[in-house]
Protein backbone atom coordinates (compact mmCIF):
# COMPACT_ATOMS: atom_id res chain seq x y z
CA UNK A 1 0.00 0.00 0.00
CA UNK A 2 1.13 3.54 -0.76
CA UNK A 3 0.61 6.31 1.80
CA UNK A 4 0.94 10.10 1.80
CA UNK A 5 4.59 9.84 2.77
CA UNK A 6 5.30 7.73 -0.33
CA UNK A 7 3.85 10.46 -2.57
CA UNK A 8 5.69 13.24 -0.71
CA UNK A 9 8.95 11.35 -1.27
CA UNK A 10 8.05 10.78 -4.93
CA UNK A 11 7.61 14.50 -5.49
CA UNK A 12 10.78 15.40 -3.58
CA UNK A 13 12.73 12.86 -5.62
CA UNK A 14 11.17 14.22 -8.80
CA UNK A 15 12.15 17.76 -7.79
CA UNK A 16 15.74 16.63 -7.27
CA UNK A 17 15.74 14.88 -10.66
CA UNK A 18 14.33 17.97 -12.40
CA UNK A 19 16.92 20.14 -10.68
CA UNK A 20 19.73 17.80 -11.70
CA UNK A 21 18.51 17.53 -15.31
CA UNK A 22 17.31 21.14 -15.75
CA UNK A 23 20.17 22.18 -18.01
CA UNK A 24 19.68 19.13 -20.22
CA UNK A 25 15.93 19.81 -20.48
CA UNK A 26 16.63 23.42 -21.47
CA UNK A 27 19.22 22.23 -23.97
CA UNK A 28 16.64 19.86 -25.55
CA UNK A 29 14.15 22.73 -25.59
CA UNK A 30 16.54 24.98 -27.46
CA UNK A 31 16.41 23.65 -31.05
CA UNK A 32 12.66 22.89 -31.04
CA UNK A 33 11.29 25.18 -28.33
CA UNK A 34 12.42 28.33 -26.60
CA UNK A 35 15.07 27.06 -24.21
CA UNK A 36 13.24 27.34 -20.90
CA UNK A 37 11.70 23.94 -20.07
CA UNK A 38 14.32 23.13 -17.43
CA UNK A 39 14.21 26.48 -15.66
CA UNK A 40 10.40 26.58 -15.69
CA UNK A 41 10.02 23.07 -14.25
CA UNK A 42 12.77 23.68 -11.69
CA UNK A 43 10.84 26.69 -10.40
CA UNK A 44 7.62 24.66 -10.28
CA UNK A 45 8.99 21.61 -8.50
CA UNK A 46 10.84 23.76 -5.96
CA UNK A 47 7.45 25.26 -5.10
CA UNK A 48 5.93 21.75 -4.92
CA UNK A 49 8.59 20.55 -2.47
CA UNK A 50 8.17 23.63 -0.27
CA UNK A 51 4.37 23.32 -0.24
CA UNK A 52 4.13 19.59 0.54
CA UNK A 53 6.69 19.94 3.33
CA UNK A 54 4.97 22.98 4.82
CA UNK A 55 1.37 21.81 4.56
CA UNK A 56 2.11 18.07 4.92
CA UNK A 57 -1.23 16.80 3.54
CA UNK A 58 -2.09 13.43 5.10
CA UNK A 59 -3.63 11.55 2.17
CA UNK A 60 -2.11 10.57 -1.20
CA UNK A 61 -4.89 12.42 -3.02
CA UNK A 62 -4.32 15.64 -1.07
CA UNK A 63 -0.56 15.52 -1.67
CA UNK A 64 -1.02 15.26 -5.43
CA UNK A 65 -3.79 17.88 -5.56
CA UNK A 66 -1.60 20.34 -3.68
CA UNK A 67 1.38 19.59 -5.91
CA UNK A 68 -0.69 20.06 -9.06
CA UNK A 69 -2.01 23.40 -7.84
CA UNK A 70 1.54 24.57 -7.15
CA UNK A 71 2.65 23.66 -10.68
CA UNK A 72 -0.29 25.51 -12.24
CA UNK A 73 0.48 28.57 -10.10
CA UNK A 74 4.22 28.73 -10.70
CA UNK A 75 5.31 27.16 -14.00
CA UNK A 76 3.39 29.00 -16.70
CA UNK A 77 3.69 28.10 -20.36
CA UNK A 78 1.95 24.95 -21.52
CA UNK A 79 3.82 22.62 -19.17
CA UNK A 80 2.38 24.30 -16.03
CA UNK A 81 -1.28 23.56 -16.78
CA UNK A 82 -0.46 20.16 -18.30
CA UNK A 83 1.68 18.81 -15.43
CA UNK A 84 -0.57 20.52 -12.92
CA UNK A 85 -3.60 18.81 -14.42
CA UNK A 86 -1.79 15.46 -14.47
CA UNK A 87 -1.17 15.55 -10.72
CA UNK A 88 -4.46 17.20 -9.76
CA UNK A 89 -6.57 14.77 -11.75
CA UNK A 90 -4.60 11.80 -10.43
CA UNK A 91 -5.01 13.10 -6.88
CA UNK A 92 -8.71 13.68 -7.39
CA UNK A 93 -9.15 10.11 -8.64
CA UNK A 94 -7.48 8.79 -5.47
CA UNK A 95 -10.13 10.44 -3.31
CA UNK A 96 -9.47 10.79 0.42
CA UNK A 97 -8.14 7.29 1.20
CA UNK A 98 -5.25 7.29 3.68
CA UNK A 99 -3.55 4.52 1.71
CA UNK A 100 -3.97 3.30 -1.84
CA UNK A 101 -3.04 0.05 -3.56
CA UNK A 102 -0.63 0.13 -6.47
CA UNK A 103 -3.42 -0.89 -8.85
CA UNK A 104 -5.60 1.99 -7.61
CA UNK A 105 -2.74 4.39 -8.19
CA UNK A 106 -2.19 3.02 -11.71
CA UNK A 107 -5.88 3.60 -12.48
CA UNK A 108 -5.78 7.11 -11.04
CA UNK A 109 -2.66 8.00 -12.99
CA UNK A 110 -4.35 6.83 -16.17
CA UNK A 111 -7.18 9.26 -15.45
CA UNK A 112 -4.51 11.97 -15.01
CA UNK A 113 -2.82 11.10 -18.31
CA UNK A 114 -6.18 11.07 -20.10
CA UNK A 115 -6.86 14.55 -18.72
CA UNK A 116 -3.53 15.75 -20.11
CA UNK A 117 -4.44 14.36 -23.55
CA UNK A 118 -7.82 16.12 -23.44
CA UNK A 119 -6.44 19.45 -22.23
CA UNK A 120 -3.60 19.49 -24.75
CA UNK A 121 -5.74 18.05 -27.54
CA UNK A 122 -2.90 15.74 -28.40
CA UNK A 123 -2.60 12.11 -29.46
CA UNK A 124 0.22 9.57 -29.21
CA UNK A 125 2.90 10.30 -31.80
CA UNK A 126 2.44 14.08 -31.74
CA UNK A 127 5.87 14.37 -30.09
CA UNK A 128 4.64 15.53 -26.68
CA UNK A 129 4.88 14.47 -23.04
CA UNK A 130 2.10 12.01 -23.82
CA UNK A 131 4.60 9.86 -25.73
CA UNK A 132 6.33 9.04 -22.43
CA UNK A 133 3.29 9.21 -20.12
CA UNK A 134 1.18 6.67 -22.02
CA UNK A 135 3.76 3.85 -22.27
CA UNK A 136 4.72 4.58 -18.67
CA UNK A 137 1.21 4.26 -17.31
CA UNK A 138 0.58 1.20 -19.52
CA UNK A 139 3.56 -0.60 -17.95
CA UNK A 140 2.66 0.42 -14.41
CA UNK A 141 0.53 -2.74 -14.07
CA UNK A 142 3.79 -4.73 -14.38
CA UNK A 143 6.04 -2.79 -12.00
CA UNK A 144 7.39 0.67 -11.17
CA UNK A 145 10.70 -0.30 -12.76
CA UNK A 146 8.96 -1.43 -15.97
CA UNK A 147 7.02 1.84 -16.09
CA UNK A 148 10.25 3.80 -15.73
CA UNK A 149 11.87 1.90 -18.58
CA UNK A 150 8.79 2.21 -20.83
CA UNK A 151 8.58 5.97 -20.26
CA UNK A 152 12.29 6.37 -20.97
CA UNK A 153 11.95 4.38 -24.22
CA UNK A 154 8.90 6.45 -25.08
CA UNK A 155 10.90 9.66 -24.68
CA UNK A 156 13.73 8.30 -26.83
CA UNK A 157 11.20 7.24 -29.45
CA UNK A 158 10.15 10.90 -29.96
CA UNK A 159 13.44 11.62 -31.77
CA UNK A 160 12.28 10.61 -35.28
CA UNK A 161 8.80 12.09 -34.83
CA UNK A 162 7.54 15.34 -36.36
CA UNK A 163 5.95 17.63 -33.78
CA UNK A 164 2.26 18.39 -34.23
CA UNK A 165 1.56 20.31 -31.04
CA UNK A 166 3.04 23.28 -29.23
CA UNK A 167 5.78 25.57 -30.37
CA UNK A 168 7.84 22.76 -31.92
CA UNK A 169 5.03 22.14 -34.44
CA UNK A 170 6.01 25.31 -36.35
CA UNK A 171 9.27 23.64 -37.28
CA UNK A 172 7.46 20.99 -39.30
CA UNK A 173 9.99 18.54 -40.68
CA UNK A 174 12.79 20.44 -38.96
CA UNK A 175 11.54 19.07 -35.61
CA UNK A 176 12.57 15.56 -36.68
CA UNK A 177 15.80 14.32 -35.09
CA UNK A 178 15.31 16.02 -31.72
CA UNK A 179 14.12 14.40 -28.49
CA UNK A 180 11.02 16.06 -27.07
CA UNK A 181 11.80 17.93 -23.83
CA UNK A 182 8.28 17.35 -22.42
CA UNK A 183 8.48 13.59 -22.98
CA UNK A 184 11.93 13.67 -21.38
CA UNK A 185 10.69 15.42 -18.22
CA UNK A 186 7.72 13.03 -18.10
CA UNK A 187 10.17 10.11 -18.11
CA UNK A 188 11.94 11.78 -15.16
CA UNK A 189 8.70 11.57 -13.16
CA UNK A 190 8.53 7.83 -13.77
CA UNK A 191 12.21 7.47 -12.92
CA UNK A 192 11.57 9.28 -9.61
CA UNK A 193 8.61 6.99 -9.01
CA UNK A 194 10.72 3.86 -9.53
CA UNK A 195 13.50 5.25 -7.30
CA UNK A 196 10.98 6.03 -4.55
CA UNK A 197 9.47 2.55 -4.75
CA UNK A 198 12.91 0.93 -4.65
CA UNK A 199 13.93 3.03 -1.63
CA UNK A 200 10.68 2.07 0.14
CA UNK A 201 11.33 -1.60 -0.49
CA UNK A 202 14.89 -1.31 0.79
CA UNK A 203 13.77 0.50 3.93
CA UNK A 204 11.20 -2.20 4.76
CA UNK A 205 13.54 -5.08 3.94
Amino acid at each position, binding site marked *: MLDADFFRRWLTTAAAAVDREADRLTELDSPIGDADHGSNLRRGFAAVTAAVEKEAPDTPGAVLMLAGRQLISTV*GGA*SGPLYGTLLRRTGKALGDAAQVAETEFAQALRAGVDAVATLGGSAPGDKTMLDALLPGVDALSTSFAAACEAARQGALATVPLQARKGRA*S*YLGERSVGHQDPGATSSALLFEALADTAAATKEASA
Partner: protein
Amino acid sequence: MLINVAETVVADALRGMAAAHPELTVDVENRVVVRADAPVAGKVALVSGGGSGHEPLHGGFVGPGMLSAACPGEVFTSPVPDQMVRAAAAVDSGAGVLFVVKNYTGDVLNFDMAAELAEDEGIQVAKVLVNDDVAVTDSLYTAGRRGTGATLFVEKLAGAAAEAGMPLERVEAVARRVNDNSRSFGVALSPCSTPAKGSPTFDLPAGELELGVGIHGEPGRERRPMMTSGEIADFAVHAVLEDLDPRNPVLVLVNGMGATPLLELYGFNAEVQRVLGERGVAVARTLVGNYVTSLDMAGASVTLCQIDEELLRLWDAPVRTPALRWGM
Protein backbone atom coordinates in the same frame (compact mmCIF):
# COMPACT_ATOMS: atom_id res chain seq x y z
CA MET B 1 22.96 41.85 -21.97
CA LEU B 2 22.12 44.78 -19.74
CA ILE B 3 20.85 42.70 -16.84
CA ASN B 4 21.76 41.69 -13.30
CA VAL B 5 20.90 38.00 -13.39
CA ALA B 6 18.54 36.11 -15.69
CA GLU B 7 16.27 35.05 -12.80
CA THR B 8 15.22 38.62 -11.95
CA VAL B 9 14.87 40.29 -15.37
CA VAL B 10 11.07 40.41 -15.28
CA ALA B 11 10.85 41.68 -11.70
CA ASP B 12 13.61 44.23 -12.38
CA ALA B 13 11.76 45.54 -15.43
CA LEU B 14 8.53 45.82 -13.45
CA ARG B 15 10.26 47.82 -10.71
CA GLY B 16 11.61 50.16 -13.35
CA MET B 17 8.21 50.44 -14.95
CA ALA B 18 6.64 51.33 -11.62
CA ALA B 19 9.21 54.11 -11.12
CA ALA B 20 8.60 55.53 -14.60
CA HIS B 21 4.81 55.31 -14.61
CA PRO B 22 3.06 56.44 -11.44
CA GLU B 23 -0.21 56.36 -13.42
CA LEU B 24 0.03 52.55 -13.27
CA THR B 25 -0.22 50.27 -10.26
CA VAL B 26 2.57 47.74 -10.66
CA ASP B 27 2.44 44.72 -8.35
CA VAL B 28 5.99 43.42 -8.76
CA GLU B 29 5.54 40.39 -6.50
CA ASN B 30 2.36 39.13 -8.13
CA ARG B 31 3.28 40.41 -11.59
CA VAL B 32 0.23 42.40 -12.46
CA VAL B 33 0.20 45.85 -14.10
CA VAL B 34 -3.09 47.71 -13.54
CA ARG B 35 -4.25 51.19 -14.50
CA ALA B 36 -4.31 53.11 -11.26
CA ASP B 37 -7.93 54.32 -11.55
CA ALA B 38 -9.33 50.77 -11.94
CA PRO B 39 -11.99 49.58 -11.57
CA VAL B 40 -13.73 52.25 -13.65
CA ALA B 41 -17.43 52.28 -12.78
CA GLY B 42 -19.65 50.68 -15.42
CA LYS B 43 -16.78 50.01 -17.81
CA VAL B 44 -15.88 46.63 -19.31
CA ALA B 45 -12.28 45.78 -18.42
CA LEU B 46 -9.64 44.38 -20.79
CA VAL B 47 -6.99 42.04 -19.45
CA SER B 48 -4.17 40.64 -21.51
CA GLY B 49 -0.83 39.05 -20.86
CA GLY B 50 1.77 36.73 -22.20
CA GLY B 51 5.41 35.91 -21.94
CA SER B 52 7.81 38.79 -21.35
CA GLY B 53 10.26 39.79 -24.05
CA HIS B 54 7.73 41.48 -26.36
CA GLU B 55 7.76 44.91 -24.71
CA PRO B 56 6.03 47.28 -24.84
CA LEU B 57 3.36 44.55 -25.30
CA HIS B 58 1.39 44.14 -22.95
CA GLY B 59 2.25 46.29 -19.92
CA GLY B 60 3.07 49.28 -22.12
CA PHE B 61 -0.51 49.24 -23.39
CA VAL B 62 -2.19 49.60 -19.99
CA GLY B 63 -4.09 52.82 -19.52
CA PRO B 64 -7.23 54.76 -20.50
CA GLY B 65 -8.42 53.73 -23.96
CA MET B 66 -6.58 50.42 -24.05
CA LEU B 67 -5.87 47.64 -21.49
CA SER B 68 -7.12 47.70 -17.91
CA ALA B 69 -4.42 45.29 -16.78
CA ALA B 70 -1.59 43.15 -18.07
CA CYS B 71 0.03 39.98 -16.72
CA PRO B 72 3.67 39.49 -17.70
CA GLY B 73 5.02 35.96 -17.57
CA GLU B 74 8.63 34.84 -17.53
CA VAL B 75 10.52 35.54 -20.75
CA PHE B 76 8.67 33.80 -23.61
CA THR B 77 6.59 31.83 -21.05
CA SER B 78 2.90 32.47 -20.56
CA PRO B 79 1.82 33.89 -17.20
CA VAL B 80 -0.02 31.70 -14.69
CA PRO B 81 -3.79 31.70 -13.99
CA ASP B 82 -3.29 33.28 -10.54
CA GLN B 83 -2.00 36.47 -12.19
CA MET B 84 -4.95 36.68 -14.56
CA VAL B 85 -7.51 36.08 -11.83
CA ARG B 86 -5.86 38.71 -9.64
CA ALA B 87 -5.86 41.17 -12.54
CA ALA B 88 -9.49 40.44 -13.38
CA ALA B 89 -10.56 40.96 -9.75
CA ALA B 90 -8.65 44.26 -9.60
CA VAL B 91 -10.24 45.77 -12.71
CA ASP B 92 -13.76 44.32 -12.84
CA SER B 93 -16.40 46.96 -12.17
CA GLY B 94 -19.18 44.40 -12.46
CA ALA B 95 -19.47 45.01 -16.22
CA GLY B 96 -17.26 42.02 -17.02
CA VAL B 97 -13.77 41.34 -18.29
CA LEU B 98 -12.46 40.54 -21.77
CA PHE B 99 -9.33 38.38 -21.91
CA VAL B 100 -7.20 39.10 -24.98
CA VAL B 101 -5.22 35.91 -25.64
CA LYS B 102 -2.52 35.37 -28.24
CA ASN B 103 -2.73 31.93 -29.85
CA TYR B 104 0.06 29.98 -28.18
CA THR B 105 -0.61 26.69 -26.39
CA GLY B 106 0.59 28.01 -23.02
CA ASP B 107 -1.35 31.27 -23.18
CA VAL B 108 -4.54 29.50 -24.23
CA LEU B 109 -4.35 26.86 -21.45
CA ASN B 110 -3.55 29.37 -18.69
CA PHE B 111 -6.19 31.90 -19.75
CA ASP B 112 -8.78 29.08 -20.03
CA MET B 113 -8.02 28.01 -16.46
CA ALA B 114 -8.10 31.63 -15.30
CA ALA B 115 -11.48 32.21 -16.95
CA GLU B 116 -12.95 29.27 -15.06
CA LEU B 117 -11.51 30.45 -11.75
CA ALA B 118 -12.63 34.06 -12.30
CA GLU B 119 -16.14 32.92 -13.15
CA ASP B 120 -16.15 30.93 -9.90
CA GLU B 121 -15.49 34.26 -8.18
CA GLY B 122 -18.52 35.78 -9.90
CA ILE B 123 -16.65 37.71 -12.60
CA GLN B 124 -18.19 37.62 -16.06
CA VAL B 125 -15.44 36.71 -18.52
CA ALA B 126 -15.25 36.67 -22.32
CA LYS B 127 -12.19 35.66 -24.34
CA VAL B 128 -10.87 36.60 -27.73
CA LEU B 129 -8.07 34.70 -29.44
CA VAL B 130 -5.60 36.61 -31.62
CA ASN B 131 -4.20 34.53 -34.51
CA ASP B 132 -3.05 36.75 -37.33
CA ASP B 133 0.30 35.30 -38.47
CA VAL B 134 -0.14 34.15 -42.08
CA ALA B 135 3.34 32.63 -42.11
CA VAL B 136 1.79 29.52 -40.56
CA THR B 137 0.14 27.79 -43.51
CA ASP B 138 -0.44 24.39 -41.97
CA SER B 139 -3.03 24.68 -39.23
CA LEU B 140 -3.88 20.96 -39.13
CA TYR B 141 -0.45 19.76 -37.97
CA THR B 142 0.64 22.80 -35.99
CA ALA B 143 -0.70 24.68 -32.97
CA GLY B 144 -2.34 27.05 -35.49
CA ARG B 145 -1.70 30.63 -36.52
CA ARG B 146 0.23 32.64 -33.96
CA GLY B 147 -0.89 35.88 -32.39
CA THR B 148 1.46 38.75 -33.29
CA GLY B 149 1.04 42.36 -34.48
CA ALA B 150 -2.77 42.28 -34.57
CA THR B 151 -2.70 42.11 -30.78
CA LEU B 152 -2.01 45.85 -30.76
CA PHE B 153 -5.02 46.52 -32.99
CA VAL B 154 -7.30 44.28 -30.89
CA GLU B 155 -6.20 45.90 -27.64
CA LYS B 156 -6.48 49.47 -28.98
CA LEU B 157 -9.83 49.09 -30.76
CA ALA B 158 -11.56 46.91 -28.15
CA GLY B 159 -10.06 49.15 -25.46
CA ALA B 160 -11.65 52.18 -27.11
CA ALA B 161 -14.95 50.31 -27.37
CA ALA B 162 -14.86 49.57 -23.65
CA GLU B 163 -13.91 53.16 -22.85
CA ALA B 164 -16.92 54.31 -24.92
CA GLY B 165 -19.14 52.32 -22.55
CA MET B 166 -20.06 49.39 -24.78
CA PRO B 167 -21.26 46.25 -22.95
CA LEU B 168 -19.10 43.12 -22.80
CA GLU B 169 -20.67 41.31 -25.76
CA ARG B 170 -20.15 44.34 -28.03
CA VAL B 171 -16.55 44.85 -26.87
CA GLU B 172 -15.94 41.15 -27.52
CA ALA B 173 -17.54 41.44 -30.97
CA VAL B 174 -15.28 44.40 -31.83
CA ALA B 175 -12.21 42.43 -30.71
CA ARG B 176 -13.23 39.45 -32.81
CA ARG B 177 -13.95 41.62 -35.85
CA VAL B 178 -10.52 43.23 -35.55
CA ASN B 179 -8.78 39.85 -35.34
CA ASP B 180 -10.81 38.42 -38.24
CA ASN B 181 -9.79 41.37 -40.41
CA SER B 182 -6.09 41.43 -39.46
CA ARG B 183 -3.13 39.54 -40.92
CA SER B 184 0.61 39.76 -40.23
CA PHE B 185 3.88 38.59 -41.69
CA GLY B 186 7.27 38.92 -40.00
CA VAL B 187 10.89 38.74 -41.07
CA ALA B 188 14.02 38.14 -38.97
CA LEU B 189 17.46 39.44 -39.93
CA SER B 190 19.11 38.07 -36.79
CA PRO B 191 18.03 35.63 -34.05
CA CYS B 192 17.12 36.63 -30.49
CA SER B 193 18.78 35.57 -27.24
CA THR B 194 16.82 34.84 -24.07
CA PRO B 195 18.42 35.97 -20.79
CA ALA B 196 18.22 32.38 -19.46
CA LYS B 197 20.22 30.97 -22.37
CA GLY B 198 22.40 34.01 -23.05
CA SER B 199 22.99 32.99 -26.65
CA PRO B 200 20.80 32.88 -29.78
CA THR B 201 17.83 30.52 -29.42
CA PHE B 202 17.89 29.70 -33.11
CA ASP B 203 20.52 29.62 -35.74
CA LEU B 204 20.35 32.25 -38.49
CA PRO B 205 23.64 32.84 -40.28
CA ALA B 206 24.66 36.41 -41.02
CA GLY B 207 23.66 37.38 -44.52
CA GLU B 208 20.49 35.28 -44.41
CA LEU B 209 16.96 36.11 -43.35
CA GLU B 210 13.99 34.08 -42.11
CA LEU B 211 10.81 34.93 -43.97
CA GLY B 212 7.71 34.42 -41.81
CA VAL B 213 9.42 34.33 -38.43
CA GLY B 214 7.36 34.25 -35.22
CA ILE B 215 7.86 36.59 -32.28
CA HIS B 216 9.71 33.90 -30.32
CA GLY B 217 11.97 33.09 -33.25
CA GLU B 218 9.67 30.35 -34.52
CA PRO B 219 10.67 29.44 -38.06
CA GLY B 220 8.76 30.81 -40.97
CA ARG B 221 8.23 29.76 -44.54
CA GLU B 222 11.72 29.89 -45.89
CA ARG B 223 15.23 31.16 -45.49
CA ARG B 224 16.90 33.28 -48.16
CA PRO B 225 20.06 35.28 -48.73
CA MET B 226 19.68 38.89 -47.60
CA MET B 227 17.15 40.93 -49.57
CA THR B 228 16.64 44.69 -49.89
CA SER B 229 14.00 46.52 -47.88
CA GLY B 230 11.91 46.82 -51.05
CA GLU B 231 12.14 43.11 -51.81
CA ILE B 232 11.19 42.22 -48.24
CA ALA B 233 8.20 44.59 -48.39
CA ASP B 234 7.07 42.94 -51.63
CA PHE B 235 7.29 39.47 -50.07
CA ALA B 236 5.64 40.39 -46.75
CA VAL B 237 2.77 42.47 -48.14
CA HIS B 238 2.00 39.92 -50.83
CA ALA B 239 1.95 37.16 -48.21
CA VAL B 240 -0.57 39.16 -46.17
CA LEU B 241 -2.70 40.03 -49.20
CA GLU B 242 -2.83 36.37 -50.27
CA ASP B 243 -4.95 35.89 -47.18
CA LEU B 244 -6.75 39.22 -46.82
CA ASP B 245 -8.49 40.93 -49.70
CA PRO B 246 -9.32 44.35 -48.31
CA ARG B 247 -12.20 46.17 -49.96
CA ASN B 248 -12.08 48.85 -47.26
CA PRO B 249 -9.12 50.97 -46.17
CA VAL B 250 -6.62 49.38 -43.79
CA LEU B 251 -4.66 50.26 -40.69
CA VAL B 252 -0.96 49.51 -41.21
CA LEU B 253 1.45 48.51 -38.47
CA VAL B 254 5.10 48.41 -39.47
CA ASN B 255 6.55 46.84 -36.38
CA GLY B 256 10.17 46.48 -35.34
CA MET B 257 11.30 43.21 -33.72
CA GLY B 258 13.53 44.99 -31.22
CA ALA B 259 16.96 45.52 -32.75
CA THR B 260 16.12 47.25 -36.01
CA PRO B 261 16.63 51.04 -35.95
CA LEU B 262 13.69 53.35 -36.58
CA LEU B 263 15.61 54.76 -39.55
CA GLU B 264 15.33 51.35 -41.23
CA LEU B 265 11.72 50.85 -40.11
CA TYR B 266 10.64 54.14 -41.73
CA GLY B 267 12.50 53.18 -44.91
CA PHE B 268 10.73 49.81 -44.81
CA ASN B 269 7.40 51.56 -44.31
CA ALA B 270 7.99 53.61 -47.47
CA GLU B 271 8.38 50.33 -49.36
CA VAL B 272 5.31 48.80 -47.68
CA GLN B 273 3.23 51.82 -48.71
CA ARG B 274 4.58 51.53 -52.27
CA VAL B 275 3.47 47.90 -52.50
CA LEU B 276 0.06 48.67 -51.01
CA GLY B 277 -0.34 51.46 -53.59
CA GLU B 278 0.58 49.09 -56.41
CA ARG B 279 -1.98 46.60 -55.12
CA GLY B 280 -4.66 49.28 -54.87
CA VAL B 281 -5.07 49.02 -51.10
CA ALA B 282 -6.19 52.27 -49.44
CA VAL B 283 -4.37 53.13 -46.21
CA ALA B 284 -6.36 54.88 -43.49
CA ARG B 285 -3.70 55.15 -40.75
CA THR B 286 -0.13 53.94 -40.28
CA LEU B 287 1.85 53.23 -37.14
CA VAL B 288 5.63 52.68 -37.27
CA GLY B 289 7.71 51.57 -34.29
CA ASN B 290 8.73 48.79 -31.91
CA TYR B 291 5.47 47.53 -30.40
CA VAL B 292 5.39 43.72 -30.50
CA THR B 293 9.04 42.84 -30.18
CA SER B 294 11.12 39.72 -29.81
CA LEU B 295 13.91 40.66 -27.38
CA ASP B 296 16.98 41.61 -29.44
CA MET B 297 15.87 40.15 -32.74
CA ALA B 298 16.50 42.32 -35.81
CA GLY B 299 13.70 42.42 -38.32
CA ALA B 300 10.20 43.71 -38.82
CA SER B 301 6.62 42.66 -39.33
CA VAL B 302 3.75 44.09 -41.32
CA THR B 303 0.19 43.91 -40.00
CA LEU B 304 -2.83 45.06 -41.97
CA CYS B 305 -6.27 45.49 -40.43
CA GLN B 306 -9.23 46.10 -42.68
CA ILE B 307 -11.49 48.64 -41.03
CA ASP B 308 -14.90 50.24 -41.31
CA GLU B 309 -16.12 53.62 -40.07
CA GLU B 310 -16.70 52.40 -36.54
CA LEU B 311 -13.24 50.84 -36.26
CA LEU B 312 -11.60 53.99 -37.65
CA ARG B 313 -13.43 56.05 -35.03
CA LEU B 314 -12.23 53.66 -32.32
CA TRP B 315 -8.65 53.86 -33.65
CA ASP B 316 -8.72 57.69 -33.51
CA ALA B 317 -10.25 57.70 -30.00
CA PRO B 318 -7.96 59.03 -27.26
CA VAL B 319 -5.49 56.64 -25.66
CA ARG B 320 -3.01 57.20 -22.83
CA THR B 321 -0.57 54.38 -22.16
CA PRO B 322 3.22 54.25 -21.77
CA ALA B 323 3.72 53.10 -25.37
CA LEU B 324 0.72 54.47 -27.27
CA ARG B 325 -0.63 57.91 -26.61
CA TRP B 326 -2.72 60.40 -28.52
CA GLY B 327 -5.73 62.69 -28.15
CA MET B 328 -5.44 63.03 -24.35
